[in-house]
């Protein structure tokens, strides 16, 4: 199965980022393809490299970056939602990119499932 993920909440504030990540990991472990994680609403904050959590906490942006590096999952932030929140390519973590809502539409079209996480 090919899966697209829509993530609508910021990191740390809500469990959505963690559940989305755990879900993606499990899907990959089971041999499914996670095509992309599309970040929307405050979800766009998930991929900024400026986040600097304490050492004993998970680094949410790095986790997404690793998912891209190790499994080719596209990590894509909506441009309109990003601009509104002061996010641009310069502060995005390696393996993530900014794109338009048209890309989300393509993701919804080309995947067997689009799973949403948020608040």
């Amino acid at each position, binding site marked *: 199965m090919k899966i697209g993920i829509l993530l*609508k909440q910021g990191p740390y504030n809500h469990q959505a980022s963690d559940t989305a990540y755990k879900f993606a990991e499990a899907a990959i472990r089971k041999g499914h393809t996670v095509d992309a994680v599309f970040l929307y609403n405050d979800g766009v904050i998930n991929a900024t490299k400026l986040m600097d959590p304490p050492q004993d906490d998970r680094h949410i942006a790095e986790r997404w970056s690793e998912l891209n590096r190790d499994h080719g999952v596209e990590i894509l932030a909506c441009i*309109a939602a990003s601009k509104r929140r002061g996010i641009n390519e310069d502060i995005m973590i390696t393996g993530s990119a900014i794109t338009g809502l*048209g890309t*989300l*539409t393509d993701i*919804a*079209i080309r995947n067997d499932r*689009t799973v*949403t996480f948020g608040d």
Partner: protein
Amino acid sequence: MDVKKILHVMRHAPHGTVYTYEGLEMILIMAAYEQDLTVVFIGDGVYALKKEQDTSDIGIKGYAKTFAALGDYDVEKLYVDRISLEERGLTLDDLVVGAEVLESAELGRLMKEQDVVIHH
């Protein structure tokens, strides 16, 4: 091209959070992709369609008129949950668009037909 049935479920009141506005932006973009789009208003989502919204004093751009104009973007399937409308003391006359009112069972069947469901 593969045409998917995509349902947007508006669930939040406008202005208090950005979900409805950014949901509307998503709907407008998706409308250009010639998919089978439907928008339903459930719970506080019905407030997004309330007539006579004037946001000038809260400093946030209003967008009820854009919902009213969705037909111009070929988004024709707009449905409102009857119970949500009634429990808020509203009728179709209170809303900016001529959406169709559906019963829970009809909306439930409509949801089940969809390929993709996105809550806002």
